[in-house]
């Protein structure tokens, strides 16, 4: 039974790796240095290494322009409110707000070249390659819809996320070590949210996508960090009582230590 499941898993894996590009026979493989990032009390962010190779066979047509790669790392989904302030009667007040619904908490676009040099605007838009083409649905009344690229709220959201290192577009982050072997690093800042992360690797040649593969990793809390987080969520009353008791103990202890009279 067990053998059959793993056989099925292998078959599935092979299926996943089959290139989706039409006539082209290139394949792209990718692997990430660590599939499980553990957050401990000393975590201050890290860089994950992603590497892989482009595989060609006899039927592959020669590529004059060489290969280009776009790696997209997408974090867990969240809903974020973006607000705009305006001066009303002399003071700055939030006058307008937009909700971005189920947008990635983390988004990194790593490429060998600037996106517009890899693919034409039509392809870039269809494949949602760069940050500018990423789908960011907003709550508009009862509907969910993305807006034009230069919408001020959309631009402000991208800018504020980028300032915190949670969104990034790095045009020269993917490097080819040999004509077929590539490597890049995924920078995860200290505030990176925990959850599942998807990696999507696209291979381009002659302004067209010729192969695609995906991988994933997860960020989890372990040890003491996980213990505290679980306690706060699942045993909230006990957690609250112990925190309050800890406060009283600390206060009482200090008054003993510092007693002079």
């Amino acid at each position, binding site marked *: 039974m067990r053998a059959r499941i793993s056989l099925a898993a292998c078959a599935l894996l092979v299926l996943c790796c089959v290139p989706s590009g039409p006539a082209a026979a290139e394949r792209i493989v990718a692997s990430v240095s660590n599939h499980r990032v553990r*957050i401990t*009390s*000393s*975590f*201050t*962010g890290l860089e994950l290494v992603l590497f892989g190779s482009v595989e060609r066979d006899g039927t592959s047509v020669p590529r004059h322009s060489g290969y280009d790669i776009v790696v997209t790392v997408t974090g867990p989904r*969240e*809903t*974020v*409110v*973006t*607000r*705009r*302030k*305006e001066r009303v009667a*002399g*003071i*700055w*007040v*939030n006058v307008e*707000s937009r*909700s971005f619904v189920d947008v990635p908490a983390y988004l990194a676009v790593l490429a060998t070249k600037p996106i517009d040099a890899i693919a034409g605007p039509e392809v870039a838009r269809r494949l949602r390659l760069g940050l500018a083409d990423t789908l960011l649905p907003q709550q508009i009344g009862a509907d969910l819809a993305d807006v034009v690229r230069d919408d*001020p709220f959309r631009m*402000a*959201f991208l*800018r*504020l*996320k980028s300032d915190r290192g949670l969104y990034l577009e790095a045009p020269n982050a993917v490097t080819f070590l040999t004509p077929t072997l590539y490597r890049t690093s995924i920078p995860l800042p*200290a*505030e990176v*949210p*925990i959850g599942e992360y998807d990696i999507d690797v696209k291979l381009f040649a002659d302004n067209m996508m010729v192969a695609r593969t995906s991988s994933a990793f997860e960020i989890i*809390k372990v040890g*003491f*960090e*996980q213990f*505290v*987080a679980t306690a*706060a*969520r699942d045993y*909230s*009353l006990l*957690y*609250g*009582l*112990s*925190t*309050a008791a*800890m*406060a*009283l103990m*600390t*206060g*009482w*202890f*200090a*008054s003993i230590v*510092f*007693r002079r*009279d």
Partner: protein
Amino acid sequence: MQIYLPIADLPVNVFLVFAMGLAVGFISGMFGIGGGFLMTPLLIFIGVSPAVSVATVASHIAASSFSGVITYWRRKAVDFALATMLLAGGFIGTGAGVWIFTVLRSIGQLDLAIALSYVILLSTVGGLMIAESVRAIMRQRHGKPVELRRPGSHTWFHGLPLKLRFKQSRIYVSAIPIWIIGFIIGFIGAVMGIGGGFLLVPMLIYFLRVPTSVVIGTSMVLTLVTMASATLLHAVTNHLVDAVLALILMIGGVIGAQFGARAGQNMRGERLRLLLGMLVLAVGLRFAIGLILKPDDVFSIRLLEGE
């Protein structure tokens, strides 16, 4: 030394947080205030989300006020009878405050309401305290006796019924103004997310004529009870109390509060009130500047809570 906070989800420098706890603890021990109106903005400034800041600060204040209560209690500078009466009004006020909080949030201008009430309340209270204490200091300079407590002078609420005698504070007043003061403190505390000590101290001094020495210890008892219950409430409802952050703040806070309490005891009442008035006014003005000046970025993002 960096440490990753399990609930706030970000690494902080242990020594920086410890120093913040120490500084705010000193101030809270000295003036008998919780210091929440100082600590919450500081935590937000180092990157902790506002919701986690408010929830965690409550436990920090509980710790430093408990150590303060013990210190003042040993010096017989706590009026427990008065504190109990104030708490009775305070609980009703907290309930009303939470209700208004929900209403304001549904209208969508809670942030503005909080900032505006900080400005109005802190500037008014700070200004009044400065004016009064400067007058008291001037009177002293001119060789006139300090006239804070005039035994013969009665205000209108001394005629109210339900009179009670508070031996520790040496006052004989109606329970009604005490309940009203407790209600106001509880209400404001719930709406603005502060302990309200900086409001309670002047109210007790000016309206009830409680001696300055007893006021601080008594106010700390009130702060302790409200903040310990707030910690529990935040932990149960929002799961946002960060115990690791709280512990670092607490240790700094209680040490600071010990030294603060000593410094406060050695200082003259009107000097203490002048300093507190200046501090309160400064924070109020800081909020006013934040509202008036053009912000660096007119846009802001915030994660939608409660998912």
